[in-house]
């Protein structure tokens, strides 16, 4: 063997040492991408995470959720309560105003009557 051939062979040997075991398989796998078996294993691993009685738990939870008032009905109830409160505030405010007006008118009427009395007595 010529010295340069020996050098090449040494170089190849040196380089080959850096390739980890299973190099060809890894290259092929990387080139092909994941096989169907890998996906199947993923699905099986996920399925194994579901505890027994999964369907029953879901149905129970769905029933519980159904018993709770929906967001829209809660919003409607809040809006109705707010409207009722506002209506009550306006009603009592108006009533208070009307009573104050009546009181003021009565006071003014008294003043008018007194003024009229003074006028007539003065004449």
């Amino acid at each position, binding site marked *: 063997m010529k010295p340069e051939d020996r050098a090449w062979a040494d170089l190849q040997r040196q380089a080959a040492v850096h390739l980890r075991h299973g190099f060809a398989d*890894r290259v092929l*796998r*990387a*080139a*092909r*991408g*994941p*096989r169907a*078996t*890998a*996906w199947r*294993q*993923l*699905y*099986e*691993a*996920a*399925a194994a*995470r*579901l*505890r027994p009685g*999964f*369907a*029953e*738990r*879901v*149905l129970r*939870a*769905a029933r519980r*959720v*159904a018993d709770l008032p929906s967001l829209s009905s809660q919003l409607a109830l809040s809006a109705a309560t707010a409207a009722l409160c506002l209506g009550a505030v306006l009603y009592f405010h108006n009533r208070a105003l009307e009573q104050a007006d009546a009181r003021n008118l009565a006071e003014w009427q008294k003043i008018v009557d007194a003024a009229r009395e003074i006028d007539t007595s003065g004449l």
Partner: protein
Amino acid sequence: METTSPTALTDLVRRAQKGDEDAQRELIVSYQHRVAGFVYAITNRSDYVEDLSQQVFIKMVRALDRLQAPAQFESWLFRLARNTCIDQLRRQKLRRIFLPFGEEHENIPEPAGAVDTEELDALRHALAQLRPQDRALLALVQEGRSHAEISEILETSVAAVKARLHRAREHLREHYQPTHET
């Protein structure tokens, strides 16, 4: 529901829509493993599988009466599952903004290889490098959804689905390098 014919499935969905609990249970049992796998593929978190699958099926039971075409049940169910997973990942991302230390606690790496095979471990590693949207795309393909169905689910064009799928597959292949292997 591989063994059920489309007509039988449609009948089952119709019964479930009328509130027949046995039919609802049958639907859940028939699809729970597929939905669990789908959730795992998108979230890449095995601890999310049970909770998110449960959320998907609760939504299914509650919204089933609004499904107008029972024949489209599978597409509809996987759309629900996809949206539930993406919403969960978004919420998790938002939570991280307000709880900066949460990420360390949420992303505790699962013990790779403890029970997984080398192939599964490599797939999980590759999926983890992809965006959730791309993982969802690949999972929909694994579920046997056609390009047209996926385009409906994602509300985009078939051409866009093909392009995105091509890129997602390229990325998956790129990261399906067992560099983390011992």
